[in-house]
């Protein structure tokens, strides 16, 4: 099965990404940001009926939260393709999504100010 010469040692995946998405349009990505966090839904039925990629994606997220960018890196799939898989899985109730963490920290300035005020009132 090996050609006598000029055999390309590096070979690409057997199943191409467009087959994994089954030719579906890649959404604009307003639902899943790169930093959106994903975890597997707690009760998984019929996981064995999923495509291999979707199954391994769910398994990947079983241990905690992973960002979309990380999932794409681990699965070695283009991010757009991962987003298609994610939206399928979210529809089927296999995964849960959560807002990225850093956004919540930006609003804390008022609390900090109050703490500072309190400290100054007590020790200052």
């Amino acid at each position, binding site marked *: 099965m090996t050609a006598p010469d000029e*055999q390309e040692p590096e070979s690409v995946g057997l199943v191409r990404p467009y087959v994994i998405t089954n030719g579906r349009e890649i959404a604009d*990505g307003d639902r899943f940001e790169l930093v959106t966090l994903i975890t597997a839904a707690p009760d998984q039925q019929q996981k064995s009926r999923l495509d291999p990629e979707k199954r391994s994606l769910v398994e990947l997220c079983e241990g*905690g939260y992973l960002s979309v*960018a990380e999932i794409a890196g681990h699965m070695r799939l283009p991010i757009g393709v991962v987003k298609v898989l994610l939206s399928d899985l979210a529809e089927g109730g296999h995964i849960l999504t*959560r807002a990225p963490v850093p956004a919540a920290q930006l609003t804390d300035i008022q609390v900090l100010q109050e703490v500072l005020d309190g400290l100054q009132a007590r020790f200052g």
Partner: protein
Amino acid sequence: MSQYLQDPALWGLVVGAPLAATVIYRGRKSNAKLRLEKTELESRHTELEDTFSDAVEEARLRAEDATKTALKSAMRTLQGLANEQQLAISKVQGKYGDQQFLQDLLEIDHMNSQFGRRAQSVSVLCDGWLGRQRTVASVYDVARSAKGRIRHFTRVEIRSQTNFAVISQVVEPVALVLAELLDNATSYSAPETTIDINIRTVPKGVCVIIDDAGVGMNEEEKSRAARLLSGEHPVSVTELGNPPQFGFAVIGVLAARYGFSVSVDTASPYGGVRAVVLLPQELLTSMPEPQNAPVPETPAAMPEPEEAGETAGGLPKRRRRAPIAIVPETDAADASNRARSSEETASIMGAFQRGTQSGRSADPSREGFEVQ
């Protein structure tokens, strides 16, 4: 008595009889000789005819051989280019995976796969190789790979999965055979109909069954197909017709070469053709462990073999079963990045940075709205 002696007729008879006998004898002799010559001539004629047809056949074979050799080497170049292009497309897909034009890239990828398949088919008919090395793959993945090599692949639905895998040597041939069958199935059925693939375990191995809802085949077409699919008769490139009908010829050659069987003589439940590929036990194995099989890159990217052993041993499990929440740990992300190539890491980090930047600059009130 004496009166007879006077009779000239008697003398005539006396003289004439030996003469006639001689004449008859000579005639017979020459006749026999002529006959002999005739048969000799005849045999020489057939000999000549044989030599002539042999010479013609030989010339034809030589021409066929020359055609095949030329085509084969031309196809090898095309196959190499298709593979190279696929590799390049894959890289770009990974690099710009979050961009709008990924859709276009996927379409280009699809076209390239079809192009590669055509080159492979011609190469097979010219006794060439498929020119791609594969690792063990599940029958399901082989079927999906085949699906990706035809134009209207979205019409193909794979209904069942199995735990069986195909040994590495036949991954590519079986994928090509299935692709040719699917190509036939989609070409000879209405565009809105679907093509079903069922994978069934049978005592002799695994059957991949392809059902279309097309027009079916008549007896003549069936017998032509059976003759080509048997793989017993050598296929001539010059006999493929115009436009050339590769499909069954390619399938027959591959089935004979790798030892599996293909039949198309039954009707599908939808009135079209049912094609059955029977993969015997010798070509099957159990499912490969890692599904994504990203293994080959890991050792190459490692600087130290000792460390590689440790990390490669620990990492895949950790990646797979216990991914850690992204927020606190930086070292875990670091460690998993080591297994990637530097380009990949760069592209992922870049994408991540762009993402966080856009997240920071975005209106905070929108954040909660976007996510469920």
